């Protein structure tokens, strides 16, 4: 019983994921899952450490490209491809985070954005990223050399497991002794410092963890769709993940997941009907979000729930 209560959120996600492919296109659900994981990784920084990284597509994209490259050029198995993407994203996070972490607030956000833009131009120019076209036709390969992920149903199970694993890990990090320190930094950085916590080092570790998980999300996306393109490292993608997190509820476990569902489904539904007006609609949602439901969908619901 205590097990059920403690893992209630995770177990309900398992149930939802088991039913979802019968109600929606599995490929759409997989896309949602990749972005939901991305948003959860971002939320680890914004919601639980108080750091606004404005260029998080860099790590998503780094995972997407490097996994795509490993699968195509070296024909590795998918688990190794993913690992390569995650490690690259983590290393990139260590370098970029190391450069940005000493700055506060808006300066931190600007530096992360500038560094992400540098990566974007690198991906545009570099010989192995496919330039404007990106990497196309990335094979899914056989998991551990045994299980063929080419089948969409098998792939669906795989993506679900990756997502659940990432979601569980983030939840674990938040509650861990380390997560407590992150929370104290978010709440009152000077006080945490005065207690003897090396605030910058904790922030950096959080940044690397978040980058690695964002990389995992990007890498999984490449495997699912078979391509990695400039969109994955584009600033617009960085903006989307901010939006998903805010709409769903920053600093809530489930918020980024709900936010990803809302934004991806909207984009999917509207793309054919209104074309590039999608951007305007997303902008409008952002404005309404900031003006009317600051805490996001999940945040507002919990606040209401606690009041009654």
């Amino acid at each position, binding site marked *: 019983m205590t097990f059920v209560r403690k893992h209630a959120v995770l177990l309900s996600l398992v149930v939802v994921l088991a039913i979802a492919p019968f109600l929606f296109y599995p490929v759409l659900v997989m896309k949602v899952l990749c972005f939901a994981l991305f948003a959860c990784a971002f939320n680890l920084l914004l919601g639980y450490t108080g750091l606004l990284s404005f260029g998080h597509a860099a790590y998503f994209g780094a995972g997407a490209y490097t996994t795509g490259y490993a699968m195509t050029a070296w024909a590795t198995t998918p688990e190794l491809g993913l690992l390569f993407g995650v490690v690259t994203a983590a290393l990139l996070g260590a370098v970029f985070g190391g450069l940005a972490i000493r700055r506060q607030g808006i300066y931190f956000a600007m530096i992360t954005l500038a560094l992400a833009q540098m990566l974007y131009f690198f991906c545009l120019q570099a010989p192995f990223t496919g330039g404007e076209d990106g990497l196309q036709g990335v094979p899914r390969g056989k998991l551990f050399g045994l299980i063929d992920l080419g089948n969409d149903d098998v792939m669906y199970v795989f993506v679900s497991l990756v997502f659940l694993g990432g979601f569980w890990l983030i939840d674990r990090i938040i509650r861990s*002794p*380390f997560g407590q*320190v992150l929370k104290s930094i978010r*709440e*009152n950085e000077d*006080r*945490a410092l*005065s*207690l003897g916590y*090396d605030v910058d080092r904790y922030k950096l570790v959080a940044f690397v963890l978040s980058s690695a998980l964002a990389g995992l999300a990007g890498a999984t996306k490449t495997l699912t769709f078979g391509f990695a393109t400039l969109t994955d490292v584009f600033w617009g993608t960085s903006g989307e993940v901010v939006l998903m997190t805010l709409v769903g509820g920053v600093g809530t476990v489930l918020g980024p997941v709900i936010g990803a569902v809302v934004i991806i489904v909207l984009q999917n539904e509207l793309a054919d009907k209104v074309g590039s007006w999608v951007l305007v609609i997303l902008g409008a949602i952002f404005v309404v979000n900031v003006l009317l439901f600051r805490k996001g969908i999940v945040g507002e619901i919990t606040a209401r729930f606690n009041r009654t």
Partner: protein
Amino acid sequence: MSPDYILETRGLTREFSGFVAVKDVELKVRGGSIHGLIGPNGAGKTTMFNMLTKFLLPSSGSIIYRGSDITGERPARVARRGLVRSFQISSTFPHMTVLENVRIALQRKMGGSFQFWRSERALDHLHDSAIRILASVELADYANLNAVELPYGRKRALELATTLALEPELLLLDEPTQGVAHEDVGRVVALIKKFAQGRTVLMVEHNLSVVEDLCDKITVLQRGQVLAEGSYQEVSNNPQVLEAYVGVADE
């Protein structure tokens, strides 16, 4: 330096774009004593604290703690050496519970705080000590409330409890009774007295009866410089000190 001084500053100076907030201060704090740092508003007391705990770098001068020069050290390192401060404006972790506020201090002493893979149960064994510390400031009943929900005086008590949880060797208190209801001041004084057994305290305090009651030695700052030093008796009879305080009162 004489070995019974735990903290010593030499020619400590801090300027803010031309304005000298602290000038050539030679402060000597004896181990095991309660040392008061007093002076009118803007005298540079908090600036001194900020330099001692490395929140501000001195423009010139040096800081010696237990015989080692800590002038260039980082704030977290100085805190881990046992030199811990509280803040003038009450400083808690607002959206963490009262218990978690104290526990985060206990956790730092225990170590292992980078362990992001461990379950929250790794912290359970700190629960009893946290409650005991909270009880000493009469906050045990509020353990599960968020710190933000406490009235101001209780927040100050929580901040003190959090600082004491680290069992610092040298405790720097910036106006611990400020904002504490009149009838609760005695309790704060008793707590500091109890804690100071076998430790050293350097405190900024405006309430002179508290200073008289607690402090073995007092340094008076005025406009960034040491005006007088000595016991409460000596300092309170010093005509310059009287003038400095009356001068302020006149404004």
